[in-house]
């Protein structure tokens, strides 16, 4: 908990247990397959790196039809190969009308179909290069998840994707 609390101001630490007040000041547009998504995040390195590596996305419309709000937390252990979110698989949950995917490294994303708007929490490496790659991989997998959810009406109850 203490490691994961870095991105929240200590002023809020005692009462902002959900980290809702973590600001997401960096915005950029990402194209994930057929999805064009406006992303709001709290990590300048990811935002800058993403824009540099995806120069054409600077030309994308500033306002996209979908918005993903993503809080990024940096974690020392995210440098290790064992941390890679694809190593262990993922779980998919249904709760009420909403769906969420949780990756094994603790990163997650949730939304309410059919809307592709959603919110997420990504645990990424402190190393800038690894961080950007992990971020892009997670975006890609979240896009797959959202597109799947749009094409299949999920049943109620807890669902699980076991790798």
């Amino acid at each position: 908990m203490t490691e994961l609390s870095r991105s929240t101001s200590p002023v809020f630490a005692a009462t902002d247990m959900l980290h809702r007040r973590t600001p997401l000041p960096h915005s950029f547009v990402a194209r994930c397959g057929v999805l064009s998504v406006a992303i709001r995040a709290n990590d300048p390195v990811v935002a800058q790196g993403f824009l540099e590596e995806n120069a054409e996305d600077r030309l994308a419309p500033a306002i996209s039809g979908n918005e993903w709000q993503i809080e990024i937390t940096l974690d020392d252990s995210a440098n290790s190969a064992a941390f890679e979110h694809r190593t262990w698989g993922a779980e998919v949950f249904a709760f009420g009308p909403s769906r969420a995917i949780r990756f094994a490294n603790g990163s997650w994303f949730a939304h309410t179909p059919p809307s592709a708007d959603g919110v997420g929490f990504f645990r990424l490496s402190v190393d800038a290069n690894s961080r950007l790659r992990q971020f892009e991989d997670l975006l890609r997998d979240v896009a797959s998840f959202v597109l799947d959810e749009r094409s299949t009406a999920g049943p109620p109850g807890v669902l699980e994707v076991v790798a």
Partner: protein
Amino acid sequence: MSSGIFLPREAMKSRLASASKCERPAYAAVLGFAGRVCRIETNSPRLAELACEFFPCPAIRSLDAFEAGIALEVRRPRPAYAAALFPVFRGRGAFVHADYGAHGSVWFDLKARKVSGFISHELLDDTELFQRSVLAVIAGVLAPAVGVVGIHAGCVVRDGKAVLLAAPSGAGKSTTTLALALRGWSLLSDDWTYVTSTGSGLRAWGMKTSLKLLPDAMRFFPQLSTLTAGLSLNGELALEFDPWRMFHLDRAVDATPAAIVLIDRNSWNPPASGCHIGHAGREETSCTLLADIEEQPAEVVREGHSALEAIDQLAGLPAVHALLGGEPASAAAVLDEFLRERIHD
């Protein structure tokens, strides 16, 4: 649950289809939280039993009265890649995830007022931890969605009247609450008090969670020297204990708010001992209570039950600020005498 590689899209679709054939939960119960009625479904009779003990159910008028739905499955833990029991909470918009690592995930859709997830047998077996880190968390997160306002204040009760003790973290809420409880007040809450507003007025509610004090409280309450400090849910190092087992303290479940005490221990000129009490204005009270209120997304807050409205009503109650000095017992003695007179007025 076994480990493996991430599923590609097509595999994910087929897994979703097969997962939908899971058995329905076998046990259902009706729970009460701050006068609200919720329904829980689970595959575990033990979980249903503990939830009913923690959230005693009021009489319900009809089955349409459920204000939130909870589905919790008990199963084997996830693989050992993340064995910690210590939860990580994250929320954004209407979504909240309580992540217990290997021991479970609980998801909240506050707009739909639905909670769903799983926990491990190990987490359920640690009753105190399950109550504190799962059941109390469910209540606290769900509160705004069911018209309940969480106030960062301790609360003690006498003759059905509640006194809320507000202060920033670490300023002495819990210590003062405990010191007053040791002078005969019933303990309703030491940290978060839940407030509802109905046609008949305000109501304060507590939960039967552990009491939490910072480790230096051992200086004032020698009974606590048998305890070992541990990390609490907000990351603070703290002593957590059952107030009944440790001090045989009475607990109150609900009461009518009658007064507010704004606790201050950080002023430059505290009394050497005891407590200086002064009048607190409506604005000061309102600002203090608002300081720790978490702003909720509009889609989450139930209409007519905003925190601002509840705080406005609370700020209209008689209020004092109390500058504490010396040992908690001496400050509580002064405060106790003052409050007894004030409440009976």
